[in-house]
């Protein structure tokens, strides 16, 4: 109820004007939304690519952070980034309980991710990516990330 009301407000806003490079793909319910983001500058890593994000909201959103991951399909790859695992899980303090604030919203998360990609020049995955992707069965919210990199 609480979450739905807030999400319906956000949705109304998203259906209006959005920052460049961000678009709403689907929001059929108040549990899962899809958003597309594009990196607007000429970063060779991400040029001409569109990345798809999946937002999952719990019933205590916005007190609790949404679960945000990149999703892969034929037209949407997982972006190369030292904080993005190849299964789409994003290591970003903003999306963790420690960094999340109810002031954030879907749009602001998209903008943050957009700028996280823009500022990156390393064409690499996080260390231990293969092992993590192979073994991880946890949902992103249950993973204990250690946030060490303040450059992003």
């Amino acid at each position, binding site marked *: *109820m*609480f979450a*739905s*009301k*807030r999400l*319906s*407000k*956000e949705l*109304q*806003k998203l259906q*209006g004007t959005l920052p460049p490079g961000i678009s709403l793909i689907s929001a*059929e*319910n*108040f549990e899962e939304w899809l958003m597309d983001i594009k990196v607007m500058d000429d970063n060779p890593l991400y040029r001409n690519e569109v990345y798809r994000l999946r937002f999952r909201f719990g*019933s*205590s959103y*916005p*007190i*609790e952070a949404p679960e945000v991951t990149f999703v892969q399909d034929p037209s949407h790859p997982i972006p190369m980034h030292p904080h993005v695992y190849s299964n789409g899980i994003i290591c970003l303090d903003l999306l963790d*309980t420690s960094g999340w*604030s*109810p*002031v954030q*919203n879907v749009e602001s998360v998209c903008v943050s991710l957009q700028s996280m990609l823009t500022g990156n020049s390393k064409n690499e995955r996080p260390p231990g990516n293969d092992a993590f992707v192979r073994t991880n069965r946890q949902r992103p919210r249950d993973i204990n990330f250690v946030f060490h990199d303040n450059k992003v």
Partner: protein
Amino acid sequence: MEKYDVSDPSDWLETHLTEFAPFDAALRCEVCKDYYNTPMITSCTHTFCSLCIRRTLAADGKCPICRSNDQASKLRRNGAMEELVEMFKVARPVALRLAQKEKISPDRSTARPRSKSKRKAADADLEEEAQRSSQKRKTRGQSRRDAPTESPEVMVIDNEEDGDYQPDDDLVPCPICHKRMKQEAVFSHLDHCEEEQEQDRRRARTRTPNSAKPTLGSSKSQLSSKPPERIAELSYGLLTEKALRKKLSDLGIPSWGSRTLLIKRHTEWVNLWNANADSLNPRSKRDLLNQLDVWERTQGGHALNSAAAPNHADAVMSKEFDGVGWAQSNKSDFDKLIAEARRKAKKLGEGQQESEAMMKEEDEGSSKARTDERSTNVKTTNESSTPVTAAPPPPYLKHSDSLERAKEKIHGSRRLSDASSTSLAPEATRPHTEIRDSVAENGAEGLSAEELFRAEERRASISSFSPTHTKGAERVPMLKVPEHPVRDVDGGKS
């Protein structure tokens, strides 16, 4: 997908008054994005709805905007903001409508459909707000009269002030204040119309939230004049589960569920209660309990997750009960129960066989029906409640395999003993089996051998097809001295 009637700062962007969008946004809480409801100011001077900030602080103890640490006890009411919001909410629909109207006129053709729906939304908004409180309705009436609107719904008939103008079918609105009155009264009304409005306005000005408070309380008629007390937050780590449960039931809220759930529920209740205590217009405890109930269904113990309460039997019966999930989450419990039942079955099985056989033999039809009925009962209680609360069923009901064996036996022997089985009332068998049960529990091991022997013996006796003998040997309760001497026909001991 549910549709909410949402007003948003972006409503202004399509009107003449785009500058109102940030103004509108500034009157909204950053957490729920709605107008401040009982705004509270934090130590870092950010303002939020009371409930929003209390929930947030309960979750992580930080201000959502600047991430500085804060405590719910340090929150203070932001009275000026509250007044501002209330007044703006009243003025908004009118202003929005006006702003939209001005915008349409130059390019009517393109803007029309859009603005029409907008206007509809604004009307809905207006109605919804009108229902919200009687106080607001009053001020709204004021502002409607003041504002030059042409909407037909602005028919404020104020009986207090115009007692002599009876509302009737053929009324006409005053061109200045839009009050409706008889045609012949309009001219006399016009003479003092502006004067009245001036008075109204003055009255409105003096009606600050503080003076409005008593009228609000009385209009709700639910609460006494003294404001409700705040509930203190608890340091849950220092409380035992029992003490916590007691705290909850002392507060008059449900006290079932796991410790985690108890803590979550208490936190939510403290937030709801204290936010309500902050409010100028507090609601009754029953309202809050309803709200807690909504929480329970969406986020608490009735939400479909592992926290589902095991001792809430109705949950199991409800249609949307997740049977598979329940079975999985309680698998270990079920397994334990089954294992226990098996163990007992093994222990008692042999003793039971006999009593079962006997009972069946004596009163086939009725006792079978009874057994079936009871076994289904037991089954449901086992499923719907905790193992502890389920009444221990007569042991023979649990042991389906021994029951089967008994049935087989009966079928085998029935052909032979049909003639011999006389009618013995089921009541007579009841104490009989009870005694047997208690004995079986006390010394099942020692007894079973003996009983096995007896069972064998009986089978032999049945097959010998002697009615009188069967009668004598069969009807004697296990450990009761028979009333008539037992005939020791074939050397058995009894």
